[in-house]
C-alpha cells in the first residue's frame, strides 16, 4: 500500500512539471531557421519531393546510420540470447492444424504484401514512405508465412547474407560520397535528374532500398528466432 502511495506522489510531481511545460508553450507562427533552410533548399540541392526523406537520408544521414546499427545490435543480441542453452533434441509440439483459409490465402497474399513493401521503399522520395516502413511491411509478409506453416524453418544464412551485404554496400556508398562528391553519404554521386521522376534525387532511391532490405531482413530474423524458441 505504501509503495502505491509513493508511486502516486512521484507521478503527481512529474505531472506538475509537465503542466508547467504545457502552460508556457506557444506555437510558432512561422517556421524556425532550420526548417526554413530545409524548406527552401530541398528541391534545388537534393531534388527529392519528400522533405522528411531528404532530412533522414542526406541532411542527417549519420543518425540513420546509427539507427541501423542499433537495430543490428538488437537483432544479433536476440539471436545470441535465445540460442544459449538450447536443448539439442526438440520435442515435437502437438500443434492445432492450421485452417484452410490461412494456407490458401497465404499463397495469394504473401507475394502481394512483399510487392507493396518494395513499392513503398522504392518510392520513398516521392510519396510518404521509405525504407523503414517498407522493411516492416516485408517482415509482415514473412510473419504471414510463419503463421501459415508453424514448422517452417527460415534459412538463417540467407537472411544474414542479405542483411550484411546491404549494410556493407550502404557504408560503401557513404564513403563513395566522400570520394566523388565531397561529404559522407552525399546523394550527388548520381545525377539529380528531373524533379518528380522515379529515377531522380541522386542516390536516395538506392540508399533507401538498401535500408529497406536491411531493416526487413533484421525484423525477419528477429521473428524467426522468436518462433524457434521452445515451449516452457
Amino acid at each position, binding site marked *: 500500500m505504501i509503495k502505491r502511495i509513493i*508511486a502516486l506522489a512521484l507521478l503527481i510531481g512529474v505531472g506538475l512539471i509537465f503542466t508547467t511545460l*504545457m502552460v508556457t508553450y506557444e506555437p510558432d*507562427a512561422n517556421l524556425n531557421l532550420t*526548417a526554413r533552410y530545409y*524548406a527552401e533548399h530541398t528541391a534545388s540541392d537534393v531534388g527529392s519531393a519528400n522533405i522528411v526523406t531528404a*532530412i533522414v537520408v542526406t541532411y542527417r544521414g549519420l543518425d540513420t546510420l546509427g539507427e541501423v546499427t542499433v*537495430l543490428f545490435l538488437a537483432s544479433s*543480441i536476440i539471436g545470441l*540470447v535465445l540460442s544459449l542453452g538450447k536443448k539439442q533434441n526438440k520435442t515435437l509440439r502437438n500443434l492445432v492444424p492450421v485452417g484452410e483459409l490461412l494456407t490458401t490465402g497465404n499463397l495469394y497474399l504473401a507475394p502481394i504484401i512483399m510487392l507493396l513493401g518494395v513499392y513503398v521503399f522504392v518510392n520513398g522520395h516521392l510519396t510518404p514512405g521509405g525504407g523503414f516502413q517498407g522493411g516492416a511491411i516485408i517482415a509482415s509478409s514473412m510473419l504471414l508465412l510463419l503463421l501459415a506453416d508453424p514448422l517452417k524453418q527460415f534459412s538463417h544464412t540467407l537472411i544474414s547474407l542479405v542483411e550484411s551485404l546491404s549494410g556493407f554496400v550502404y557504408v560503401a556508398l557513404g564513403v563513395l560520397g566522400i570520394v566523388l562528391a565531397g561529404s559522407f553519404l552525399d546523394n550527388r554521386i548520381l545525377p539529380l535528374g528531373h524533379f518528380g521522376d522515379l529515377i531522380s534525387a541522386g542516390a536516395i532511391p538506392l540508399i533507401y532500398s538498401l535500408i529497406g532490405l536491411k531493416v526487413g531482413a533484421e525484423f525477419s530474423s528477429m521473428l524467426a528466432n522468436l518462433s524457434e524458441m521452445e515451449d516452457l
Partner: protein
Amino acid sequence: MAYIAMATGFLLILIGFYGALTNRNLLRMIVAFTIADSGINIVIIAIGYMHGRTAPILDAVVPAAEALNRIIDPVPQALVLTAIVIGVGVTALMLAFAYKLYERKGTLDIAKFTELKW
C-alpha cells in the same frame, strides 16, 4: 489542437509509468513501457504542428516555390521516425530477456528475483 494532443501524450506517459511501477508481472511492465513510448512520440509530433499548414511534401498542391508558407516543421518527424524503430528494437530485446529469466526461474513475478539485493 496541439494542446489537446500534447495533453494526451503527457497523460499517456504518466499512465505508462504508473503501470511500470505498480505491476508485478514482467510482461505487464513491458506493455506499460510500450504505452509510455507511444506517449513520448505523440508529444514530440505535437510540438511541430502549426495551425493552418499541411504536411511537408512538395507536389501539385504545395509547389516548391511557396513551400515556405505552407508546410509544418519537418525536423520532429525525422526524429520520431528514428525513435519508433528503436523503441520496437528495445521492446524485442526486453521480451527475449524476459523469456530467458522465465526459463531460469520458472516465474514472472519480479519480487522473486532477489540475487541482486543486498
